[in-house]
């Protein structure tokens, strides 16, 4: 198992390198000029040219890539062309917020999606299945944007139960920053008022973000359970008198979640992408808005670093998925 994971870990290095190359090329193909954007719209062409030179943008792509790689290997990720802050510092500041949101959303969609998927499968082609499938199609089709606004209108504006935006109320003193995860920091500092406030801020964005994932996890679980229900061992387990509910929720489910687990790994990526919209709507101070801003302004260092970081997180999550896979299905540990 350890060797298996180690090999997977080594395999991620070339993929991260490929990711960097592609990102680098993409950045150079897309028409955006950091120097022009940085100089502002009152700048003269001379000012822009000077900035280009200072930033090394007048060198060849290959030379620039070489320089960049060299710095990345030394764990230097450069600074934002605009805020002049070390990208690593900015990311470290924002990533926890995104991860907190993403994990919570992932948790929600998994915790709800798996049981719903099982319900669908068990009631295959009966009304609960149709109903849930209808909603899961809806969940995929309906834009997060729209859902978010509806949730805001209902829970923040009409009922006033939950906050509209941000991750902490303005008048709430933030807990001392330790991990960067607001909930964890609040708990560590024994600040339950901040914990409650932060949790309440988490609800709407997490629900919005969870919806798309919920739909796909439901579908994958449903498919997985349906497939497992065709297996001989189900028939055998029935023949030897397993309790139906235990058979479904324990013995069948564990065989079915492998596909779902893979899906959760993939979902993590799409949640980070979907987080861009959600973070914008709910003013979540995470990586999403940082990235969008970087793309709009052509902030290359930020774009590269964020891509790399997402790549690393993604690889990490997939490694984790592999690990869980191994725990769920003992056969994998040996064959791999």
């Amino acid at each position, binding site marked *: 198992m350890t060797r298996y994971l180690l090999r997977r870990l080594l395999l991620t290095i070339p993929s991260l390198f490929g990711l960097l190359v592609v990102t680098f090329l993409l950045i150079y193909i897309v*028409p*955006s*000029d*950091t*120097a*022009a*954007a*940085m*100089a*502002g*719209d*009152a*700048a*003269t*062409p*001379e*000012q*822009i040219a*000077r*900035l280009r030179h200072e930033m090394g943008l007048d060198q060849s792509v290959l030379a620039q890539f070489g320089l960049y790689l060299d710095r990345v290997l030394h764990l230097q990720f450069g*600074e*934002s062309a*605009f*805020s*002049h*802050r070390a990208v690593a510092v*900015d990311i470290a*500041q*924002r990533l926890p917020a995104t991860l907190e949101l993403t994990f919570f959303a992932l948790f929600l969609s998994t915790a709800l999606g798996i049981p719903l998927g099982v319900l669908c499968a068990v009631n295959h082609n009966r009304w609960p299945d149709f109903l849930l499938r209808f909603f899961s199609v809806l969940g995929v089709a309906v834009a997060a944007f729209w859902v978010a*606004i509806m949730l*805001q*209108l209902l829970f*923040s*504006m009409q*009922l*006033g*139960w*939950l*906050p*509209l*935006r*941000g991750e902490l109320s*303005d*008048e709430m003193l933030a807990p001392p920053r330790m991990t960067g995860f607001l909930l964890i920091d609040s708990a560590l500092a024994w600040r339950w008022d901040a914990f409650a406030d932060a949790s*309440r801020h988490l609800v709407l964005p997490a629900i919005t973000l969870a919806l798309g994932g919920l739909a796909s996890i439901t579908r994958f679980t449903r498919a997985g359970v349906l497939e497992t229900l065709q297996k001989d061992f189900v028939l055998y387990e029935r023949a030897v008198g397993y309790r139906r509910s235990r058979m479904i929720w324990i013995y069948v489910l564990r065989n079915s979640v492998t596909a779902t687990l893979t899906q959760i790994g993939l979902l993590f990526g799409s949640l980070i992408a979907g987080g861009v919209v959600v973070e*914008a*709507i*709910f*003013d979540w*101070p995470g990586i999403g*808005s*940082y990235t969008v*801003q970087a793309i*709009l*302004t*052509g902030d290359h260092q930020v774009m590269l670093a964020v891509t790399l970081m997402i790549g690393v997180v993604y690889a990490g999550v997939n490694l984790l998925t592999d690990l869980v896979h191994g725990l769920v299905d003992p056969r994998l540990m040996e064959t791999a």
Partner: protein
Amino acid sequence: MEIRITRRQTGALALGTLLTAAGRARAADPSTFLNGAQMPMNLDPHQVFDVPMQGVMLNAYDNLYRYENDPPEIVPWLADGHTVSDDGLLWEFRLRPGIRFHDGSEMTAVDVVYSFRRVLGLGMAPAGAFLPILKPDKVTAPEPLLVRFQLEKPYAPFFAAIPIVSIVNPRAIQAHEQIGPNGTDWAKSWLASNAAGSGAYRIDPASYTPLERLDMTIFEDHFYGWKDNPKPVRRIAFRPTKETSTRVLALLNGTLDCTDNNLPTDQVARINASKNAVVIKDTNMRTFIVRMNNRKPPFDNLNARRAFAHAFNYEGFINDILGGYATRDPTPLPDTLWGYPKGAKGYDYDLVKAKAYFDKALAEGAPMKRAIEIHVQSENEQSVQSAQLFQSDLASIGANVKIIGDTWGNMITNAVKPETAPDMWVHWVSTYFVDPENWVGQMYDSQFHGTWKASSYYSNPEVDVLLRTARGLTRQEERAPLYEQATRQIMADCPDIWVYNSMQLQGYSRRVKGRRFCTVGAGAEMRWVTLEA
């Protein structure tokens, strides 16, 4: 009677109280202004100069002169007056005594000199107006409170541009400067996230997350004093809200005191209908224009340009797309600015005339039917919509226009050469300084060819003379008629299509009182504001 409550009911009750307690509209903190407008890319007023920066520089920094009121007047601020030599080359500004920076140190002329040299040295956005006429060593401090500028050539708009430069505290900055082979870096990384000002509010660097949040607290010892406003805002919390809909909702539920100043027109009615917010409407000086590349056929032909100018549906665009929140301005100058040619008629939307000019140009051999590209900022809806509207009208007279989505950075980079400049492109010209030079001067004097502002590559020697003369004179009464005359001539030559002068729409909480609008700062100066309990 006995009231019996089951355990489940107790639970529901507790949950209910929790939720309602949480949701109860809290009494808004009467000392904190929650600002929902956009934040600048960083906090250094010498690196960034745009509308969002006004919220930082007008509050955390001071300048020698400052624009106040509407229409804007330039008023003494840190300086209590200035003199200018007859040849317009030597300018002297006298500082008020006893001005203190946030760190308690006193501001002297040396600090002003440092600030201007830093602007010139960094050479970024705020430097644009000064680089051609001012050398760093020509800013001096002959006396502790006297700053002297020796210009390379007479340049009347120099004075109009003075408010661009925020005065910074070198004692706070210098420790962070890094000296490289090209000299100092002016601590540009440090000041981007920190502050070194003297303004009415003091930046709390610890609160700063770029583009995300920033807190400022009142500076009691501000040189201007607080006698004009006995109950000022004590804390400004910048909480820029990215999504328009969220921003508006936050304004409506009292968690923001203002939106950005680009409120979409379709939100106006909704905000005005609410009981705790209102939309404030101000005319600013920001003109919207469709550029034509006068060097590229058919735009080298006057009749061709006129055909295009008559084919833009000005009223339709302003009324239908902008909901009427803009004023039709048929000239390159904002209609509220001095030097504006009063009664100028300009071009109207008339497809019959357009067609007539079109045919005339065609007869003169202009390639009227070639595919013409119009570049827009893809992420800016208005710029796209204007091009779409234009495209359909032009199609009806026989012109073939293609809309190309582009970015601002790319467009201004391409605009610096007539060969690479687009056939047409769409943009705004904002107020960098309040002077006709900011518009007609820099847009139509042929000496500016090679800058994006002059990217129609229009050249008329007669206009050049008028604009250059006006630039060299210092008195507004003498300059105004020259700009008027030049503008009329430019309009006759029709190098571009001038559409409107903007109106700024900004949602405010009704508790905000005393706001003063000035187009240059876009109403971002907070020292006048009081929050009603």
